[in-house]
């Protein structure tokens, strides 16, 4: 049988199918806007009736609306969304001053500290809930009562801090709350790291134990406050009802939720009863999810977004962005970036408890080379410790400026502690024991230096930096096995105590590091190391006392205390520090009033106008 046209056709079918399959998979990735609708089709030419669509970060989409954030839902995406509907008492940072209280975005007047900084009075501005009732001191007390009864469920809880360090909170009139503290605190820290997390909640609507139950004063007893929290938390888990649940329609912020889909798409519409100074001027604000930065960039250039970002692997393509009718705005968070180590892991716990191993893990991270080669030199900056490099503060100790990258030093650390490094593969412990030149407690003979490293998916630059880290680590006999998971999965596994910690992970990199972007530019260590959802480092007494000093010292002693804390942390390397990135935002030239606030990284769409 000779080849004929029919036979050509017979193999052409599967072959064409193959090509189409490959192309489709490729197309899926490029355009997997995951619900990214043709948003621009709805764009209006004037503010009234206009829809502004903003891209959500590839490393996390909002997945919980309840403004009493739990550890598992502690993400900038959630906080930034909640803030549009339920603002905190204080928003810290203005466009020009990272440390200032943002007056127009804060629900209360600046706090007044008295009695040697042991008492603070907070007076609310005359805001109203969307159901017409005023926002009062009772709403702040409602939050505090829920917090007292459910403190371990709160993402920002740190033992010894709020609410433990507040002896009492009482209403003085309808709009003032007086907090009596258990000792004198640094007012900057207390405002930035304690008061700024308080979210007045609508007591007149939410103080109930079930959807059909009557509103009461359940929060005034511990049992009642627990029941109310459980009810609200359960409702908050029900993402399918976000647009229809009457609970979430009672807001004091500028926006109400209209729609939420399980992939993270959010549509907000103006709260018509909003009593704040800056009323929304557009008809709708949408947040679009993307599973990869490439998909986001494609949508941005394709015109389906008004506000997005330039992926860090496309920094050289900014001219395309400006050519497509956008202007580029660089922003950064008050943040540090690190990979967390699982001290409670039965497999690698004994390893990471050894200082020399943690130092070796830091010695094989080449941040300058990664920034230069992977981030086009301009997409990020080095971070060797717990004090943010950007913006500059008086808190950083000189030791933090030293680049630890040194593979030879890592090898020396390991060999001098009883490890044998083969030409290829993982180093093995040959001198078990607890002596100064032995492997250390809990490390048996033959134990290999192998770690699994879980990092967040969807980011090309992060994959490249992790590949580079693995490569450099292997030169020191440290085997790092890489795997990826979505952001929400990774942060769901990590928490700072052995009881809630998932033992499966060993090194975790959720991409965003630790940011004080939930309200504070004051890089205090308590939330990072001692917090309920902080890193998994078992805090020694020395560190705890240094952290306390940063919270209680004031005046010139503040910088001194911060430097002492910074120095101790760097000498003990509790985590693996990694580069921090800028966000290169792209804003449509048609949309005015877009400001990326330096502390929260958030935008306030009520300021937007569309030309």
């Amino acid at each position, binding site marked *: 049988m000779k080849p004929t046209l029919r036979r050509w056709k017979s193999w052409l079918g599967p072959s064409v199918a193959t090509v189409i399959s490959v192309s489709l*998979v490729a197309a899926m990735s490029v355009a997997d806007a995951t619900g990214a609708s043709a948003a621009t089709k709805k764009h209006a030419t004037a503010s009234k009736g206009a829809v502004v669509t903003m891209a959500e970060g590839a490393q996390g989409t909002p997945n919980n609306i309840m403004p009493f954030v739990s550890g598992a839902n502690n993400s900038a995406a959630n906080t930034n969304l909640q803030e549009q509907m339920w603002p905190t008492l204080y928003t810290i940072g203005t466009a020009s001053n990272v440390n200032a209280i943002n007056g127009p975005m804060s629900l209360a007047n600046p706090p007044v500290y008295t009695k040697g900084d042991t008492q603070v009075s907070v007076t609310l501005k005359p805001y109203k809930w969307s159901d017409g009732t005023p926002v009062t001191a009772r709403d702040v007390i409602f939050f505090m009562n829920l917090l007292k009864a459910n403190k371990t469920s709160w993402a920002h809880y740190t033992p010894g801090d709020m609410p433990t360090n507040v002896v009492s909170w009482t209403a003085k009139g309808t709009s003032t709350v007086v907090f009596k503290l258990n000792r004198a605190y640094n007012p900057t820290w207390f405002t930035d790291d304690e008061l700024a997390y308080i979210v007045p909640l609508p007591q007149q609507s939410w103080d109930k134990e079930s959807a059909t139950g009557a509103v009461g004063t359940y929060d005034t007893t511990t049992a009642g406050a627990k029941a109310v929290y459980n009810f609200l938390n359960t409702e908050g888990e029900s993402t399918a009802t976000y647009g229809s649940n009457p609970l979430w329609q009672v807001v004091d912020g500028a926006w109400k939720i209209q729609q939420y889909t399980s992939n993270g798409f959010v549509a907000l519409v103006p709260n018509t009863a909003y009593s704040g100074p800056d009323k929304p001027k557009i008809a709708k604000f949408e947040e679009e999810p993307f599973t990869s930065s490439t998909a986001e960039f494609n949508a941005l250039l394709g015109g389906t977004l008004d506000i997005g970002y330039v992926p860090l692997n496309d920094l050289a*393509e900014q001219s395309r962005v400006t050519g497509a009718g956008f202007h580029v705005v660089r922003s950064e968070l008050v943040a540090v970036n690190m990979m967390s180590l699982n001290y409670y892991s039965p497999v690698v716990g004994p390893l990471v408890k050894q200082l020399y191993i943690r130092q070796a893990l830091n010695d094989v991270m080449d941040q300058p080379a990664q920034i230069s*080669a992977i981030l086009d030199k301009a997409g990020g900056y080095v971070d060797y410790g717990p004090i943010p490099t950007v913006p500059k503060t008086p808190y950083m100790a000189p030791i933090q400026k030293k680049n630890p990258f040194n593979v030879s030093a890592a090898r020396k650390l390991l060999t001098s502690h009883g490890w044998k490094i083969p030409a290829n593969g993982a180093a093995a412990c040959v001198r078990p024991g607890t002596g100064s030149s032995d492997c250390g407690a809990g490390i048996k003979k033959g134990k290999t230096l192998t770690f699994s490293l879980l990092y967040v998916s969807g980011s090309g630059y992060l994959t490249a930096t992790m590949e580079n880290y693995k490569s450099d680590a292997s030169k020191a006999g440290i085997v790092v096995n890489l795997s990826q998971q979505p952001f929400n999965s990774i942060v769901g596994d990590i928490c700072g105590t052995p009881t809630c910690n998932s033992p499966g992970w060993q090194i975790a990199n959720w991409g965003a590091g630790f940011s004080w972007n939930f309200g504070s530019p004051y890089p205090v260590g308590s939330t990072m190391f001692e917090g309920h959802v902080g890193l998994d480092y078992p805090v020694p007494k020395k560190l705890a006392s240094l952290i306390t000093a940063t919270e209680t010292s004031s005046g010139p002693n503040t910088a001194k205390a911060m430097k002492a804390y910074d120095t101790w942390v760097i000498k003990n390397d509790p985590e693996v520090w990694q580069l921090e990135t800028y966000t290169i935002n792209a804003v449509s030239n048609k949309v005015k009033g877009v400001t990326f606030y330096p502390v929260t990284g958030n935008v306030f769409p009520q300021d937007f106008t569309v030309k």
Partner: protein
Amino acid sequence: MMQQATTATAPTSISPDQARRRPAPRAASALRAMGRWCRYHKLGCAGLVVIVVLTLFSFVGPLVYHTDQVHTNLTSVNLAPSLQHPLGTDNVGYDILGRLMEGGQSSLEVGFAAALLASCIGTLWGAVSGYVGGWVDALMMRVVDSAFAIPPLLLLLLVGTIFTPSVIELIIVLGLVSWLVTARLVRGDSLSLRTREYVQAAIAVGARNPRVVARHVIPNALGTIVVQTTFEVANAILLLASLSFLGLGPAPPAANWGAMLSNGLNYIYAGYWWQIYPAGLAIVVTVLAFNMLAESVRDSFAARLMHT
């Protein structure tokens, strides 16, 4: 004894020259047969040549063209093709040509092994189902129908999300989602074969069912199995590429064509074509070659059946 030995060995002793030439007729015959086959199945022959070349490229290539595919090199990232790097470098400095070779190894290994596994499972399942018949056949085929309802990529994504698969795990998973077509085809053959005289004769002389299936049913369905296995190699390679493209294949620094394509697409706006086309072409050419070969093998078996 020495004499006996000499006497005994004398008739079989051959000269070195003869020893070299003796197998020649068989080899020549095989080559002639291949030539005849190629004359009538040019596309299949082209596919076979491509597969042989790809295999040599993937497995012999790295012995000739040495590159480091384990350690990144941040001093030479995203380099365009040059004499030093004929296909350029990627975003962490891996040489793309070397990476294509490494990726080819995993694609072919996984493709062949997964196809073999799928064929073994599918053949056994289909042969037993068709031979036994009745409610057993109905039940086994409903299992196949149910499994068909689940898109394999969905299953693979699920598995890939739960754990980061190694090559062995990938082979098992791909094999487990790819046996269904083989089972159906072999079951069809088996239904027909069980009524043949030689099968009936075997049963009549007391052969037990497993023996009949193993010695009479499966060998006579071999044509179907070989053709389908060849198709399955292509499918497995494509599935592996899809999975890796979506970031759920073997973890870096393991090279994989799908992952290379995915990574290259991050730089599509930068114009780094060398990070996209080679991997994409390798996938298409390989899958195409296996499909062409399988089609021709199927035609060969069909022609033989027509003559018998």
